[in-house]
Structure formats: structure tokens, C-alpha cells
């Protein structure tokens, strides 16, 4: 089975899957209508999501139901206190982790599922306003999403007193302007507020102090777009698509050295070997060398380890990496691991927001050391130095970008140490 959640509406034979008509023809907006008409309790919806084991698709893998529950008042006194308080639901479409390009397809082919998902989230957490933060480079996806919003307003699905149920919900797009760090949820909020995207200290968490200082929930595009399908069927249905603690199907962006790079929506727990097959196998008849299973910041795995893992949070963690955003980067046996890592290190150096010293300075160190190794000027002590710098970044920064920069370095050197050593000793690659 495949294409049952976010890609349900993106069948390749279906023209203009992004229109309201196409979405409604497949049952779109039925869930929010039912919720609004029957005034289903937010607690009931959250319980269903918890049953589904939907976990954050942006990379952190946090339980969506649990995250939403933080927005509900704990008791009557809190309910009274929160009356009239503006809350926000924010969608993170700032897709920028190298290897990740799934949210772009949701915005392009299934924008109404995201709108419905945001409406359901807004209703559940008590937010009458939502923002979708789309990265600035995604002009076409932004236009698709804006068009979908306009269609929804015209159909009375957004705005005031929606379908005469007393529910108000306004939805807006915010466009980024080129900054990977804005994918970090508090940097994203700073960015909507018109500032540099520098992550905030936590606590306070966004549920208590979010956008404009108001209670806010931030979810990834794929997470929110999965919600209508889950509630249209049931939490149990979604859970059973995948496996315990790893509910559902998920989008995997398979890129790099495969015959058919693409986004594949497949059940959680699918063997990696099957996914590789779907993508046509390693290209040009070459051999698999390494796999980054979850996007550039997740540890790289050797082929023999990857071939034994399944594509779910727990199995990939057991293999020594992370599912992340489901961005599977395939490398064949001609790949120069030193050059590849140097490119990644440069990325984090470029994208560090500069706020925390270990990350700001450390990413520069990593880049410069790898650069000199790559250019034949490596020193015998460099591998130890890279390890040392990485370990001083890990855990010592406000946000996860520091860890994201360090993990590839540590894992590349651990798994392919001989290639780095060869470069240092001979001034050139041992591959090809």
C-alpha cells in the first residue's frame, strides 16, 4: 500500500489535484465540517491523534497529539483565564534540510489538505488565526497555496463564522527569504515577527509564549496535512498503516545515486531495501556505499547496516541514525566521502545564525579543517581535531543546528575513517 495519506490527492493521473474541486471530490473538508457541525470535543480529537501515533514529520518526531494537548487549559480556572486570549497555529513549510523536498510537493499538489489540517488544529487548540511559513525560494508552491486559500475563503471555508458554526479561522502565508535556521520553530516565530531568525531560549516553550508572545503550536506541513486523513478514517487505521509507536505512512524523499529519485509515501516500517528498489536501485549498476536516512544532519550509515534497517523512527535509531524528515540520500561506491562531508560542513557554517559561540565558531573550524584536507593540506592531527570540535559543539547551543552540524562529521569519520586518513597521507581521494 502507498499514497494513502498526504499523496492520496496526488495521483499522477489526476489533473490539477491542487484545486478545491479535486480535493472535495475525494472527500476533502468533510472532516472539519463534521467536527464543526457536531462540535466534537478537542479532547476527543487529541485522543484520536494520540492513538494514531502520528509523530512530527519535520524531523523531531514528537507526538502530535501530545503537542496539541499542551494548548488545552488544565482546569476550569485556566479555561477562564485563557478566555479571549489570541492563540496561533503555525505551519512550518520552511523546508531546507538538504535532501528534503516533500513539503514542496504537498504545497504544490495537495494544498487543501494542509488548509484543512490547519483548520482542525486551530479548532482543537483554540486558535482563530494561522500562518503558514513557506521558504522564500518556493515561489510556485507559495502561489499554489495562496490560490488554495483564496478558493477556501470564497467557498466560506475560511473567515468568520465558518458554515454558520461560530468558528472563525483566518489563514495567511508568510514568505521566508533564505535562512535554513528558520526551520527551527522559535527562529521561525522571530522571522514572522520581522526579525533575524535566531532561535529563542526554551523554556518558555511556544505553547505558553509563541508568536507575538501568544500561545502557539507549530507543526510541520506533512504533519498537519496528515491530520484530515487520520480523522476521516481513525487513529487506529493510521496506526495500523505503520507499526506501534510509528503510525502511518510517511513521505520519503529519495535522492542521490538512484535510478528514480522521487518522493515515496510508504508505510512506516517498510524495509529500506524495498524503498531502494522502488527508487530503481542504485544507479548505473553501481554498488551501494552509504545512506543518510533522514536528511543531512542525521548520521550516515554504511550500506550493510542500512540494508538491514526498516524505515521507521525506532528501527533507524537502532541502526545508529535518525529518521529525521525522511530524506534518504543514497551514495554509490564512487562517492568521495571527504568531499561530501566538506560540502555539508560548509552548509552548516553558512547557515549558523551566529548566536551561540560553539556553533558560530565551531562550524567555521569544521569547514576550514575539512577544506584543507580536501585540498591536500590535511595534517595528521586533523581527524582528532574534527572530533574534538564536533564534541564541543554538541549539546552546547540554544538550538539543534549545532548538533546537526556535528553529527555528520562524527559519523562520516567514524564510518569512513580510512578515506579521511588516505586524503591526509596522500593529498587526494582513494576513490576514483
Amino acid at each position, binding site marked *: 500500500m502507498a499514497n494513502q495519506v498526504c499523496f492520496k490527492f496526488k495521483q499522477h493521473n489526476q489533473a490539477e489535484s491542487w484545486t478545491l474541486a479535486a480535493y472535495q471530490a475525494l472527500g476533502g473538508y468533510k472532516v472539519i465540517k463534521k467536527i464543526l457541525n457536531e462540535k466534537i470535543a478537542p479532547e476527543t480529537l487529541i485522543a484520536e491523534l494520540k492513538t494514531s501515533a502520528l509523530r512530527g514529520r519535520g524531523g523531531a518526531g514528537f507526538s502530535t497529539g501530545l503537542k496539541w494537548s499542551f494548548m488545552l487549559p488544565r482546569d476550569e480556572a485556566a479555561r477562564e483565564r485563557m478566555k479571549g486570549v489570541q492563540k496561533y497555529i503555525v505551519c512550518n513549510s520552511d523546508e*531546507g534540510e538538504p535532501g528534503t*523536498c516533500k513539503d514542496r510537493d504537498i504545497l504544490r499538489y495537495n494544498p487543501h489538505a494542509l488548509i484543512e489540517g490547519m483548520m482542525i488544529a486551530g479548532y482543537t487548540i483554540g486558535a482563530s488565526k494561522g500562518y503558514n511559513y513557506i521558504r522564500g*525560494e518556493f515561489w510556485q508552491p507559495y502561489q499554489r497555496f495562496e490560490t488554495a486559500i483564496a478558493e477556501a475563503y470564497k467557498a466560506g471555508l475560511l473567515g468568520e463564522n465558518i458554515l454558520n458554526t461560530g468558528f472563525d479561522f483566518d489563514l495567511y502565508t508568510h514568505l521566508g527569504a533564505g*535562512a535554513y535556521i528558520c526551520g527551527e520553530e522559535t527562529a521561525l516565530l522571530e522571522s514572522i515577527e520581522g526579525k533575524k531568525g535566531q532561535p529563542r531560549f526554551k523554556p518558555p516553550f511556544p505553547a505558553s509564549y509563541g508568536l507575538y508572545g501568544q500561545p502557539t503550536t507549530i507543526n510541520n506541513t506533512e504533519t498537519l496535512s496528515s491530520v484530515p486523513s487520520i480523522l476521516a478514517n481513525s487513529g487506529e487505521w493510521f496506526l495500523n498503516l505503520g507499526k506501534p509507536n510509528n503510525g502511518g505512512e510517511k513521505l520519503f524523499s529519495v*535522492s542521490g545515486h538512484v535510478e528514480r529519485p522521487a518522493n515515496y509515501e510508504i508505510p512506516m516500517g517498510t524495509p529500506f531495501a524495498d524503498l531502494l528498489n522502488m527508487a530503481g536501485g542504485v544507479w548505473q549498476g553501481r554498488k551501494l556505499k552509504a545512506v543518510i536516512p533522514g536528511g543531512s544532519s542525521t548520521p550516515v550509515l554504511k550500506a550493510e547496516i542500512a540494508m538491514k534497517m526498516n524505515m521507521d523512527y525506532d528501527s533507524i535509531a537502532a541502526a545508529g541514525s535518525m529518521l529525521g524528515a525522511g*530524506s534518504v540520500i543514497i551514495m554509490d561506491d564512487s562517492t568521495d566521502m571527504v*568531499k561530501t562531508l566538506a560540502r555539508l560542513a560548509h*552548509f552548516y557554517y553558512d547557515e549558523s545564525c551566529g548566536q551561540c559561540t560553539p556553533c558560530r565558531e565551531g562550524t567555521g573550524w569544521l569547514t576550514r579543517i575539512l577544506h584543507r584536507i580536501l585540498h591536500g593540506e590535511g595534517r595528521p592531527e586533523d581527524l582528532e581535531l574534527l572530533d574534538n570540535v564536533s564534541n564541543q559543539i554538541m549539546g552546547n547551543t540554544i538550538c539543534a543546528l549545532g548538533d546537526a552540524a556535528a553529527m555528520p562529521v562524527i559519523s562520516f569519520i567514524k564510518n569512513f575513517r580510512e578515506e579521511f586518513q588516505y586524503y591526509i597521507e596522500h593529498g587526494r581521494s582513494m576513490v576514483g
Partner: protein
Amino acid sequence: MTHKTSSLISDESKADIDRWLQKYPADKKQSAVMAALRIVQDQNGGWLTPALIEAVAAYLDMEPIAVYEVASFYSMYEHKPVGKHHIKVCTNISCLLRGSDAVMAHLEKQLGIKKGQVTEDGLFSIKEVECLGACVNAPMMQIGRDYHEDLSPEKIDEILARLK
């Protein structure tokens, strides 16, 4: 002063900025600064000048330094002239694995410039950028607002020919 700097922003750009202002609470005009900078950058042929940055500050009632901070933080704001067709080449991992080095080399050869430069006729400029989120269609580049994916030398030549 405010009136003068603000007049650098065209009426059309102001109308566009005003549309963005409607998305945010009335007392949160600063939220529109990213859109405003993009709009005046487009109006100015793809790059920002200090005068334009200050005009945005005046228009949104912001301190100029707060606008400079934003304009210098985000990579899509340019601070020196770019070509009419600003070519952004992704060289991050998925593109690297599928030949972005060759894409860059081919563009540099065909246009006779290096990355970071503008052609003499002002038609093209090349910029190396980080991941643009089209990894399953690597290698790729963005020209203006459009993505061009699954690139080959032939495809690049066709695209350039169309733009010349």
C-alpha cells in the same frame, strides 16, 4: 526626510506592501519587513541599496538598524547589482551527488563569468546557493522565481538560449 526616503518606494510597491500588512495584527507592522524588502528589491532590479533599506524602515515605522539586520541576515536579499537573470545554482549534497559541479562549470563556461559575477551586458549573474529543496530532481538551479530541474548541459543551453 521620512517623506523623501519613502518616495523611493513606487506606488505599486507600496500597494503590494500594504497587502502584506493586512496579514498581520495592526500593531505588528514589522512582520511585513521581509515582504517589503523583497518587493523593493524586485522594484530595483534585484538588489537593495542603503537608501531603499531606509525607505522600508520609514514606511514601516522601524528603526533603520532593525531593517538592516533583516536585510543582511537572509540570503535572498542582494546588496550589489545582479544580472537581469540571476541564476542560483544549488551545490548541496543531493545536487553534488548528481553533478552540480558540472552544472556550475558549464554555466561559467557558457556565460564567461565566475560564480558571484555579472555578465558585461548585465543579463546574467551566477550565485552558488544552499539546498533549494528540490533534491529528488537534482541537479537544479533557480532563475528568478523559477526552478529548473534535472539539469544536463543540453538543458542548460536551451534555457540560456531562451533568456538571451
